[in-house]
């Protein structure tokens, strides 16, 4: 870390502070949202209605690749914010682009995985289990997609305006969002895939 002792740029104005606090509270709401998705998934997990169950369709290799991509992207988004704090526009831009590429890779593998599920006869209409599974994974995937588009737009603003109080606070918030998606994924990895493959 750099040896700054003053307030980071993204916290400088009152409005930025409020934006960041507001976003934390939004993440609180997101936690409730994903908790509900998880709880519903657990309720529906064994309602396969004669269709495939988790262990029939999950492929460990795909999941591990997805996990690796997303975890790495979370790390690189951290590096990007680190660069931002050092007023290193180029570093910020580079690491954010790496993050986005990793995110896109994650999405690629996730879509492949969905196609594989469907190929195995597990569509979203098959059973209570598949409905819960696809919706949980799909909501996470939709968040990742949204994040990629959002951060891309922010990068355009960054290129045009440089690291300012406003752009830095926006990018900081986007990185919080990205880390959050990573945390959700860890839960999905553990409680959907690992649990599904063991039990």
């Amino acid at each position, binding site marked *: 870390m750099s040896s700054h002792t003053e307030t980071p740029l993204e916290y400088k104005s009152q409005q930025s502070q*409020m934006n960041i606090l507001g976003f934390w509270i939004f993440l609180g709401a997101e936690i409730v949202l994903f908790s509900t998705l998880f709880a519903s998934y657990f309720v529906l997990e064994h309602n396969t209605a004669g269709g495939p169950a988790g262990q029939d369709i999950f492929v460990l290799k795909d999941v591990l690749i997805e996990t690796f991509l997303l975890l790495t992207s979370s790390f690189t988004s951290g590096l990007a914010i680190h660069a931002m704090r050092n007023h290193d526009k180029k570093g910020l831009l580079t690491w954010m682009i790496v993050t986005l590429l990793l995110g896109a890779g994650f999405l690629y593998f996730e879509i492949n995985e969905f196609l594989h599920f469907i190929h195995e006869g597990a569509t979203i*209409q*098959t059973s209570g289990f598949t409905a819960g599974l696809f919706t949980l994974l799909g909501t996470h995937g939709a968040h990742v997609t949204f994040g990629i588009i959002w951060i891309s737009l922010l990068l355009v603003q960054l290129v045009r305006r440089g690291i300012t109080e406003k752009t830095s606070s926006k990018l900081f918030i986007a990185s919080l969002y990205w880390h959050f998606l990573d945390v959700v994924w860890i839960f999905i990895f553990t409680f959907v895939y690992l649990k599904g493959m063991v039990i």
Partner: protein
Amino acid sequence: MSLDEFFVTGDPLILGSQIAIGLTMIGLLALITYLKRWKWLWNEWFTTVDHKKIGIMYIISGVLMFFRGGVDGLLMKAQTSRPELDFLDAQHYDEIFTTHGVIMILFMAMPMLIGIMNVVVPLQIGARDVAFPKLNALSFWLFFAAAMLFNVSFVIGGSPDAGWTSYFPLAGKEFTPGVGNNYYAIAIQIAGIGTLMSGINFVVTIIKMRAPGMSWMKMPIFVWTSLITSIIIVAAFPIFTVALLYMSMDRLFGTHFFTVASGGDPMLWLNLFWLWGHPEVYIVVLPAFGMFSEVIATFARKNLYGYKSMVFAVAGIAFLSMLVWVHHFYTMGNSAAVNSIFSLTTMMIAIPTGVKIFNWLFTLRKGRIEFSTSMLWALAFIPCFTIGGVTGVMLAMAAADYQYHNTMFLVAHFHYVLIPGVVFAVFAALYYWWPKMFGFKLNEKIGKWHFWLFVIGFNLTFMPMFFVGLDGMSRRLYTYAESTGWGAWLGVSAVGSLIMAAGFAALCYNIYWSFRYAKRDAGNDPWNARTLEWSTASPAPHYNFAVVPKVDRLDDFWHKKKSGKLGLKKSELKPVHMPSNSWTPVFLGVAFGIVGFFLVFEWFTLAIISSVLIIIGLIANSFDYDYGYHIPVEELEEEEREWRGELK
């Protein structure tokens, strides 16, 4: 889909309303054009980010929705006023009680309360606006789009008809195939997003924007209740978001979350619905408690008794509200242990609520009670709500609930909670804060008519329902046999509902009368009140406070007023930073409305195409670097001088 499937046809009542709506719309548009008010509407209202104007728009929508929901209620009362009436058929009745419930809770109570919070909270904490003014406007427009979408259902496509709780499997496509319940799923989803953002907005506003010196325990009680309500919104609404998402998936894409077939679980809907639904009751009732507290303290001319215990009571109620959802379905075959636990948690809510009732009574004690209209509402609330409260405790006892569940007793109970708890509060608040919004008071004499008609009508309407409920009448019955003997009770109830309606008419007349004739002399502090909003002009200037006040204690304004420490020094004035108006919120509201409409009809191509509008709105918003503008000192000085006289 043919045109007569698209428009609801064949029912003379609906046909009448279709024509009426059509004519009103044309008339309204013509009037605005004639008066050349389009530009004014756009600049002053549609694009505004001013919390007071947004609040007023919420309140206007709430009053309109109150009318719509009230007409639904009257129709129900008319149909059941005598046994075996043929006024409405089963289908029409089912639609009406469904829309009555949804509209009253989500499109009347919520906007009324959020509207009043919008007007009052920033003023009470000495802020110039909420934390995110543009987001605030977006919340409103999403709510408004959702309300319009929901209301259009009864002329286009058909209303939802599975009850405001929309229990599965009934609410699934197998049992209610039409588009009616799609309206429920989509419209409430849109409104819910708006509400969630309001919740976040108010939490941040209250945490970050309080006037210097206003520590937690110096906040007005209404701000406390708003804060806690907002926290419950953030904690509870996402649950409903997911539940509605599942509902939409089941209905639109044939998934099996809640179906009977293929491993769906209808009980999951009940749990998710009430995990949101019970806290929702407190979302609407807690700010109401805050309003009553302000009104009672003001008109008893005393500080609120036991302020601290009030705060803890509200927090306690909020916490417990998350732990009681099962009491909505004690009869679902839960184990005796589960029912006992939830009986206990539910009854525990009575404890903080009781504390509040006694604190209000002791605020009144040794006071000097002035019976203004607004105070009358607050006073009537205490006995009426007590009846709602004690019957709530009776319902909380799981075993006894086996005999009350789904009966008119339950219906009577929650109307005795929600009408005194929310509607009385909204009325009290409207009379109380009206001068702060518009600069003149509502007429007190017409207000008394409004009060007495409404309160008498309310008791006549709902008291008999307790008795028919105990006599075995289940809720949502569109007809009953004469031999049941319920006719007499329900006849009285129907008469009561007409009296209530007359009360509402008196309110509307009062608003009309006061706009035309009331003297514009309210002054900044017409009620001799206690909190900061009364320290600035009425109506509040768009910048709220020329100088952000400094706060030393609870009810700071009251004490400074008594010791003559008020007043504005010219030297204190500095330019005020204000946010600019924005077109994106209203644009996004319309876009969400259009996409929602297409989703309701399952026209997915059109929905996808029109969602481009949403994306455009979001991008425009993200690239908007408007920093707002500053009001120069001279302008402030002039505006302040207008009501203060010469500055020091």
